[in-house]
C-alpha cells in the first residue's frame, strides 16, 4: 500500500520529487475517453461488446476493492449489489416507464441505502465470519428474488423493444448504454482515488491493518465500515441497471451469479489489492485473457479452473498483484501509478 507516496506527491516534505496532484485523476479521465471512443471510432460492435464487459468488470472490481483492499473486509457476495440494482432499474423502466439514467441512479441509491442499513448489522462480524455471511447474503437474496412474484420469480423480467424507443431504437441504445457504463467505470475509479487520498480512506486503511488499534486511535469503525460498504454498493448497482437493461432480460441466476463475484476478487488479486489501478489492470487483463481462452472450446469448459489457478498463484507467490510488483521493482512509479 502506498499512501505515504501520494502524500509526498501532494507536496509533502520531499521537495525534490513532486508530481502535481491532479495528474492521476487526469490520467483516469483520458483513459476513460479513449476507452469510450475507440470502439465508436472503429465502429466495431465486437470490440464494443468486449470493452463493455471489461467496463463492467472494472467497475465491479474497483468498488469491491474499497472493501477488500482498503477496509480489509472480504465480500464474497459483492454481486448482490449488481443484481439488485439491475432489478430495481429494470422494474422502474418496464413498469413505471422511468427514463433509463434516472432508473439506474435510483437503483444505485436504493441499493446503497440498503447496504448502509444492512451493513451496520452484518459488519459487526469480523474476518472470516463476515466473509461467510456475505456468501449467505447473496444466496438468500437470490432465493428470495426467485420466489418474489412481482419480479417475475424464477423466470425474471423481460424488456420489450418499446423500452429502447425513448433512446432512439435498440442500435443507438446499445451505444448509449456502452458510453454510460464507461462513465460509471471512470466515476468508480475517481471515487476510489478520492477515497484513498482522503481522511475517510485513511480511516479505512487503518481498519484494514488493525481494527482494534484503529478504534483506540479514535476511528469510529462501525460507521466507517458501513459507509465503505454502502459506497462500494452504489456504482455496481448502477452498472447492474445499465447492463441488464442492455441484456433485455434479468433473472435470478444471471443477476446473482456468485462466479462473477469471485472473478472480481481474482481481478483484484491479479492487479493488486489496495491500489487504485490494480483492479483496473487486473480486470482488463482478466477479461482479455478470458476472451482469448473462450475461443477454444476445450478451454472454455475449464474457465473456472484457470481462474482458480490464477488466483492461487497470485495468493501464494505475488500477493501484491501486478501493480504491487511494479511498485516493488520501480518504487518511483508509486507516485504516478496509484
Amino acid at each position, binding site marked *: *500500500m502506498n*499512501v*505515504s507516496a501520494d*502524500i*509526498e506527491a501532494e507536496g*509533502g*516534505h520531499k521537495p525534490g520529487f513532486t508530481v502535481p496532484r491532479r495528474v492521476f485523476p487526469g490520467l483516469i479521465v483520458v483513459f476513460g475517453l479513449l476507452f469510450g471512443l475507440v470502439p465508436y471510432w472503429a465502429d466495431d460492435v465486437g470490440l464494443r461488446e468486449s470493452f463493455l464487459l471489461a467496463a463492467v468488470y472494472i467497475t465491479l472490481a474497483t468498488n469491491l476493492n474499497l472493501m477488500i483492499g482498503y477496509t480489509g473486509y472480504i465480500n464474497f457476495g459483492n454481486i448482490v449489489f449488481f443484481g439488485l440494482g439491475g432489478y430495481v432499474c429494470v422494474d422502474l423502466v418496464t413498469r413505471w416507464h422511468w427514463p433509463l439514467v434516472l432508473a439506474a441512479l435510483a437503483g444505485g441509491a436504493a441499493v446503497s441505502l440498503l447496504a448502509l442499513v444492512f451493513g451496520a448489522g452484518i459488519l459487526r462480524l469480523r474476518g472470516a465470519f463476515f466473509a461467510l455471511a456475505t456468501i449467505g447474503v447473496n444466496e438468500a437474496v437470490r432465493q428470495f428474488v426467485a420466489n418474489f412474484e412481482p419480479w417475475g420469480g424464477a423466470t425474471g423480467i423481460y424488456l420489450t423493444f418499446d423500452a429502447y424507443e425513448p433512446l432512439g431504437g435498440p442500435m443507438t441504445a446499445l451505444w448509449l448504454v456502452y458510453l454510460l457504463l464507461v462513465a460509471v467505470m471512470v466515476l468508480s475509479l475517481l471515487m476510489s482515488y478520492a477515497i484513498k487520498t*482522503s*481522511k475517510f480512506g*485513511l*480511516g479505512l*486503511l*487503518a481498519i*484494514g*491493518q*488493525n481494527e*482494534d*488499534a*484503529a*478504534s*483506540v*486511535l*479514535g*476511528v*469510529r*469503525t462501525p460507521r466507517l465500515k458501513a459507509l465503505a460498504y454502502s459506497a462500494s454498493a452504489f456504482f455496481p448497482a448502477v452498472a447492474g441497471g445499465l447492463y441488464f437493461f442492455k441484456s433485455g432480460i434479468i433473472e435470478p441466476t444471471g443477476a446473482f451469479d456468485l462466479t462473477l463475484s469471485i472473478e472480481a476478487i481474482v481481478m483484484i488479486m491479479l492487479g493488486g489489492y489496495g491500489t487504485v489501478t490494480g483492479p483496473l489492470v487486473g480486470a482488463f487483463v482478466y477479461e482479455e485473457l478470458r476472451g482469448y481462452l473462450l475461443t477454444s472450446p476445450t478451454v472454455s469448459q475449464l474457465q473456472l479452473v484457470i481462474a482458480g489457478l490464477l488466483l492461487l498463484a497470485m495468493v501464494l507467490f505475488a500477493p501484491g498483484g501486478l501493480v504491487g510488483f511494479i511498485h516493488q521493482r520501480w518504487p518511483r512509479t508509486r507516485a504516478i501509478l496509484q
Partner: protein
Amino acid sequence: MSVLLEVRALSKRFGGVQAVADLSFAVAEGEILALIGPNGAGKSTVFNLINGVFPPDSGRVIFAGADITGKPTYEVAHHGLARAHQIVQPLAGLSVLDNCLVGACYGRDGLSMAAGREVVREVVELVGLKERIDMPAGALTTAGKKRLELARALCGRPRLLLLDEVLAGLNPTEIERMIEVIRAIRARGVSILIIEHVMRAIMSLSDRVVALNLGRHLAEGSPQQVANHPAVIEAYLGDPKLMSDLKITTTSASEPS
C-alpha cells in the same frame, strides 16, 4: 489541582477470576500517576476498563466531568484519552506518517489531513521518529515501534495518556531516551497514567503511585511512601526480582540528586 480522571469502585470478573475489585483512584490535571503491582495484579485490565476495550461489571469511569464508562474505544479517544499499548500494535503496512495521521485526524480534534500533517511533524520531532517518517511501521525496530505507539497516541492531542509498559523490552540507553520523551510530553501539559515494571523509571518519573494486588487497591502515595509500604513489600515478596528493584530504587531515589 482539579481531577481529570476519576475511577470509582471499578470491578471486573473473568470467569472465576476477579481481575479488578472495587478499585478507586484519581488522576489530577498535569499529574504523572503510576500504577504498579506484581504480574497479574490487574493493571492492564484497569486500562482496558478505562479506555473501553470492555465494560466493567460495576463502577464508573469519569473523565473531565463526563461519564465514559463502557463507551467504545473510539469515543473514549474523542474525549481526549489516548493509549499506548504494551504489545505494540502498529498499522504495519502503513508508513509512520500515516500511522500518526490516523491519530491526529481521528483523535480529540478530528483534524483535517492538512492540519493533521502539521501536528504529526511536530510530534515525530518530539519522539525522535522524524528520520523514519516514510518507513512502513512494520519495518521499525522494537524501540521504534514503542515510540510510534507513543507518537500516534500523542498526535490525537490527548489530555490524558495511558502508557502501558512503554519501557518494556528497551535497553538502558533507550529507556533513558524514552523517559526524556515522557517528561517532555508532561511538560506540554498532558497528564499521564503509566503502568511500568521498570521501577527506577517509576520512581524518577511519577508524582504519585497507586499499588495494586489481585485487582485491589493496596497503597497510594509518593513513590517512596508506596515503596516502603509494608503491604506493598509483602505483595512483592513472591517476586524477588521486583523486590530487589524496589530496594535499589528506594535507596537511589532517596539520595539527593
